[in-house]
């Protein structure tokens, strides 16, 4: 499972993506958030942002959602294009 970070989230974490597989594979978004939060203060801070957006397979998701090995998850701030 690929997890991607964009814009201010990417910069705050100092990384654009990470991978989960095998036994570490989270079953759902809540489990993924927990696994990420365990990586340190920067992750905890980002995950606590009230307006953080989460997308699963390139579609925005609110709340929890089941995850599988081939899924692509992304975390990013509110969009500001156009």
């Amino acid at each position, binding site marked *: 499972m690929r997890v*991607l970070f964009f814009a201010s989230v990417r*910069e705050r974490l100092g990384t654009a993506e990470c991978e989960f597989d095998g036994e570490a594979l989270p079953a759902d978004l809540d489990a993924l958030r927990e696994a990420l939060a365990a990586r340190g203060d920067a992750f905890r801070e980002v995950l606590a942002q009230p*307006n953080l957006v989460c997308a699963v397979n*390139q579609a925005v998701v609110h709340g929890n959602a089941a995850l599988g090995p081939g899924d692509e998850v*992304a975390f990013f701030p509110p969009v*500001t*294009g156009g």
Partner: protein
Amino acid sequence: MHRFCRVQQADFDPAALQAALLAGSGGGEAAGAVATFTGLVRRPPGDEAFTGLTIEHYPGMTERAVEAILDDAAQRWSLLAIGVVHRIGELAPGARIVWVGAAAAHRGDAFAACEFTMDYLKTRAPFWKKEHWAGEARWVEARRGDLDRAARWAGAADTTTASRQE
């Protein structure tokens, strides 16, 4: 209906895009109206230190999001063609950022689809702007006004009805 969506680093030519839109509009004699929007890197008034923007995006999701907006526009209004071009990467003050064009038989549809597409691009497509100054950089914050503008389209039946009457 003809449509296109391009996400690119390169600059674009609004005239060529408008010509492509018309070429896709049933041979050019079916369209009575073409509305376009071009967004540019604006230098904040008096801010001489401002050196421009960088635009980051989420490859793959961006194209999906834009296509979904164009699907929505095509459902809401009677269009002959619609197109979007959005640049990414480093952009100097005055540079073109985004172009939206809509061609229709009647102007109500062209105007509404063009403005709707811009409002949704601003709030639903995964692009992020970072502003740069000599020695400083800051991610642009999402604007409440953009969300309000996008929310107007939830009750857009009036506009559609008006344009159908033409």
